[in-house]
């Protein structure tokens, strides 16, 4: 078993290297057509972060929500469900954190207010996830589609709210909510927007890995996801395990939203949190649902997202180019996959 495991890891690393090389190669070709020197561009990307506290902080800013929503996609997949709703669950969490923070906690000290906001965020995420879950458990509705639809509904609800009910009265009539009070904001590291939530995110990923690989609970969860009938025969409470997993996952996505709101966003906009849930889904999708590898992939995606603006300044390459690199990497990694075949 040990040999099989190391072989699998070896294969994964080789695939990753081939993927990296191929993507960099393809992107290099693109750069040449743009009259850029690939080497200098790649150096510039690295330089974005060297000695640049702010940019490194941006990596952590993006990585927290991406990593946590990645877990929100990963956990249900292990028990046989598909949660595409991390996007909406995060946004709902961000919204809840702000609303509770502004309307309930403004007078409270930080050590009280922030946890309360986070609890609200988790609850909002769970509520978002509960609707598709009920649809699945009671009506056998396909949860992939319902979670996807919920994303759009949540976004519209937020848009409605910022144009009306929660619009900041002191905000010059911009469609934004009130800002969180100073003491309710998660403090950043000096010189950047990065903050301690990244540690929480990494710890969550590690805990997820531990649960699935080193605990009885994770063992049972994988049985449920691997062969539901086998779990039934063994007397496992399949529905209970699935429901709890799904709610925990959507709660985590909500928490990510709460963190994001309190540390970076501060107020709710129409586009608050947009895109993180999807990127989290992608981050786990390209590493085959492995929590530890998700840390790596989230890091990579965040870095690419973070270096765009600086890249433009340094090389004249429009910031969209870093997104091109990211999407090329993603597609190449997908292309390296192979459909599992039964013998």
């Amino acid at each position, binding site marked *: 078993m040990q040999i099989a495991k190391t072989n699998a890891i070896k294969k994964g690393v080789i695939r990753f290297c081939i993927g990296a090389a191929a993507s960099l190669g393809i992107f290099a070709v693109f750069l040449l057509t743009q009259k850029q020197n690939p080497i200098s561009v790649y150096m510039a990307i690295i330089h974005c972060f060297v000695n640049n506290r702010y940019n490194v902080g941006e990596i952590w800013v993006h990585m927290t929500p991406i990593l946590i929503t990645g877990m929100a996609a990963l956990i249900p997949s292990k028990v046989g469900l598909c949660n595409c709703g991390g996007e909406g669950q995060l946004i709902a969490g961000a919204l809840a954190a702000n609303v509770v923070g502004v309307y309930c906690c403004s007078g409270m000290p930080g050590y009280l207010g922030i946890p309360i906001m986070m609890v609200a965020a988790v609850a909002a995420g769970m509520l978002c996830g509960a609707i598709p879950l009920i649809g699945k458990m009671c009506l056998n509705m396909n949860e992939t589609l319902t979670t996807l639809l919920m994303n759009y509904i949540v976004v519209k609800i937020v848009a409605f709210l910022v144009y009306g009910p929660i619009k900041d009265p002191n905000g010059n009539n911009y469609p934004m909510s009130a800002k969180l009070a100073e003491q309710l904001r998660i403090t950043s590291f000096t010189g950047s927007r990065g903050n301690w939530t990244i540690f929480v995110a990494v710890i969550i990923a590690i805990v997820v890995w531990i649960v699935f690989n080193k605990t009885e609970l994770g063992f049972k969860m994988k049985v449920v996801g691997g062969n539901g009938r086998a779990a039934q025969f063994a007397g496992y409470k399949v529905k209970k395990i699935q429901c709890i997993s799904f709610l925990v996952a959507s709660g985590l996505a909500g928490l990510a939203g709460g963190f994001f709101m309190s540390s970076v966003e501060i107020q709710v906009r129409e586009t608050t949190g947009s895109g993180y849930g999807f990127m989290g889904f992608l981050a786990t999708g390209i590493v085959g649902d492995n929590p530890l590898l998700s840390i790596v992939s989230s890091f990579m995606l965040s870095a690419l997202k973070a270096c765009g603006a600086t890249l433009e300044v340094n090389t004249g390459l429009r910031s969209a180019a870093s997104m091109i690199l*990211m999407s090329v990497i993603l597609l190449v990694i997908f292309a390296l996959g192979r459909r599992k075949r039964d013998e």
Partner: protein
Amino acid sequence: MMSLIGDFILNTIRSGTPIIYALIGDLIGQRAGHISLSVEGSMLMGCCLGYTTCYYTGNLPLAVIVSILGGALIGFLQAHLNIACGANMFALALALNYFATSVTTYFGSSMISKSIKGFSKIAIPGLCKIPLIGNALFNQDILTYISFILPVLAYFVLYKTKLGLAVRSCGEVHQVAVAYGFDVKKLKYGAVIVAGMLAAVGGCQLSCAYTMTWTAEMSGGRGFIASALVILCCWKPLRAYFAAYLFGAAQALGILFQLMGLPIPTNIVNMAPYVITLIALAITAINKTPMMPEELKKIGRPLEIMN
């Protein structure tokens, strides 16, 4: 008052047209058992490529062809990376959309806030004078006219030809299609590529006929919406009229309310198509009549082996 209603109908049709293209496209793909959320990316490619071709060559048919090629590329990647390489359908679509967004934003930046002379309107004499609807239905560009008959064409192909039946059986019980000698892989690839191509034409219409301009991320989620609306149609092509123009009406209503100064929030109105789609999903789940193609019910679970 009359002009307000007339404008409302006009806006409904205008907003609904790109949706119909992407909707019919993804409907065909979903009938084959594959959900192509990447129609968003295909549409965007169509927007940008169509506009660029128009801008540099002024050749409209060429613009459409180049759009179609762009959409076909996205569709091909969607099919191939999922079927041959086992990528998750949705993650893949997201990646493809990022790809389309980044590429079109990058290459299209020089053309922002320029304008072209795109497809001009062709008025149908006599009919275009009908009050209220004349302007909306009979004074449009050719791509819009084509969109009017697209659902009917799709209906004909899917229900009245062997190929269409084979595509549908692919999405229901693909073993049956295999048993009768159809190449299920080819059918799926074909359907998904067609989805990309149609969505691209919708995008081309958006930039070359509707707005005659280009902005980054112009498709604005219309592709996603179209994908969701396929469910609202219960996968029946003729219902595309209802679904697409429902969405168009929601948008037009928003504009109307703004003009009239009504406080009804546009965002709630915009949410309506999604909520209705969710309800439609619930109904298809409860209903004994099979409406959702069987293969789609298996999505999210480990994919089966293709013969």
